[in-house]
């Protein structure tokens, strides 16, 4: 799978953003991923955040704080990101099921320490933030205005293998 993981970033400045906020249960009656597209983050109430606004519409990367994707196991949460061309989330930490769902779909749930997450959030004051992802080198480059910040990230060998295979079904089918 040839995916481009970087691009304009949308910042969600709150911890414990749950999967009901990412994709409300009333949309779980859909049986295709595409049908979820209009509803991403519809129920998230956050000062300055508009789920129908340009920042989210243009975004390819989400940045957030602790325990992102907590609550329900619904893989509809990563799917609603995927059908909106968002393949990368960067956060201080994730709920287990959401994190695994991201990698199972061949997407990235990158974890950064608090001091690096703060550095990323801080970049916003320079202007709209663009993030480039180097998966092989495990590096991020974030640009806003004339400022550039560099980050290294850790990723487990398994998660990396999942992304490289295109997802868990591909990986497991080849192996078991």
């Amino acid at each position: 799978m040839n995916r481009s993981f970087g691009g304009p970033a949308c910042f969600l400045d709150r911890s414990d953003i749950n999967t009901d906020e990412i994709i409300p249960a009333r949309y779980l009656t859909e049986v295709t991923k595409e049908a979820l597209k209009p509803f991403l983050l519809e129920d998230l109430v956050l000062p300055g955040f508009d789920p129908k606004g340009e920042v989210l519409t243009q975004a390819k990367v989400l940045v957030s704080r602790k325990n992102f994707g907590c609550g329900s196991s619904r893989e509809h949460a990563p799917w609603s990101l995927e059908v909106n061309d968002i393949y990368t989330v960067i956060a201080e930490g994730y709920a287990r099921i959401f994190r695994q769902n991201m990698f199972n779909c061949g997407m990235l749930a990158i974890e950064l320490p608090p001091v690096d997450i703060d550095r990323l959030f801080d970049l916003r004051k320079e202007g709209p933030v663009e993030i480039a992802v180097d998966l092989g080198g495990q590096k991020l480059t974030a640009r806003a205005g004339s400022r550039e910040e560099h980050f290294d990230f850790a990723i487990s060998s398994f998660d990396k293998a999942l992304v490289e295979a295109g997802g868990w079904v591909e990986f497991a089918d080849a192996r078991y």
Partner: protein
Amino acid sequence: MGKTIAQKIFDAHLRDEPFPGTCVLDLDRVLCHEITTPVAISDLQWRNKDRVFDRHKIKAVIDHVTPAKDSKTALQGKILREWAGRHEIPDFFDIGQNGVCHVLFPEKGFIRPGFTVIMGDSHTCTHGAFGAFAAGVGTTDLEVGILKGVCAFRKPASILVNITGQLPEQVVAKDVILHIIHLLGVNGATDRVIEFRGPVVDAMSMDARMTLTNMAIEAGGTSGICLPDQITVDYLWPFISGEYQSREAALADFTKWHSDPDAEYERVLDIDVSTLEPQVTYDYKPDCVKTARQMQGTPVNQVYIGTCTNGRLEDLEQAAAILKGKKLAPGVRGILSPASPKIYREAMEMGILTIFMDAGFCITNPTCGACLGMSNGVLAPGEACAATSNRNFQGRMGQGGMVHLMSPATAAATGIKGVITDPRDL
């Protein structure tokens, strides 16, 4: 060094460790419902791999929205139903036999100590009450589980919660787990198995243990688990009597899974429940917990008793004991959803449903429904519900609505007064 029960289960099921710390486990149970399975089914069909690894290890039910409320939910049921028929899955539960998955499947004896269990549902941790490793997963994990009978997990670290003391009057498992989640926080057990031990757990019925393990996910836990014992044997005996010479033999077998005395835990939480009070959540996270007395006087519009957390017979009995001879406060809507047909029938035969009806409750078929705001009692903006469910996220039971989580007795007392009420204060 000794092993925890989770480590023993992992060792016994390890198919592969493709990378250090990544355990690919053989699965004993792959459980399915109509919300998270259809996309897996469609994807398998698209890949020309429409098959199942073992039709006896898969159990399926339509439970989240049932009977179908519109064409979309009807289609979800149809996809699951046709798939179960195509693959001759004997344990598929449809209208008339269906109930809330994490209540129905244990009732059918499908879960055993030492089992590995997955489902596309975050409250799968409920089944850990039987001494199984049971974890909620997403649709892709479910899909691989259906096709290959395996699932990958990181090597588990465990948190030991040692529960001692004497449970006071009207303080039950729901209050204990709300208190534990308050102490751990919604992120306190992420990537950990919560092992519930101690004399208080030993004295709990399977119903009460399932209330504990059901909410392990709300502290972020990969699973919750209890050690199997005589109570487990007695619950499962109707289903296992053909496999063991005696209950003693079953107990000896189950005991093999117990955590070793020198097993290592990442953290140990000692909790004495002797002074614990009925608990109620406020705000929008399950770790925002106060006592019912601290929340006293908060008005509610609806009381919802049911769900995989507290929809079992014991839960209905506790609420009925409060409601007997009393009525819901004017303006308060009461909804009871017994969580399985068996529980519904037993409650009916015991006169429990009559108590609820006399109190002014609406009694529905077994379903998840309002717990996640999909049907069966969705809240209007500005409304509040006293609920025996497991999540109070913003908008969970309806956009603009507020959910206060509590025990069945506290919910019943709250319904009678129309405001949050400690059941001891009635």
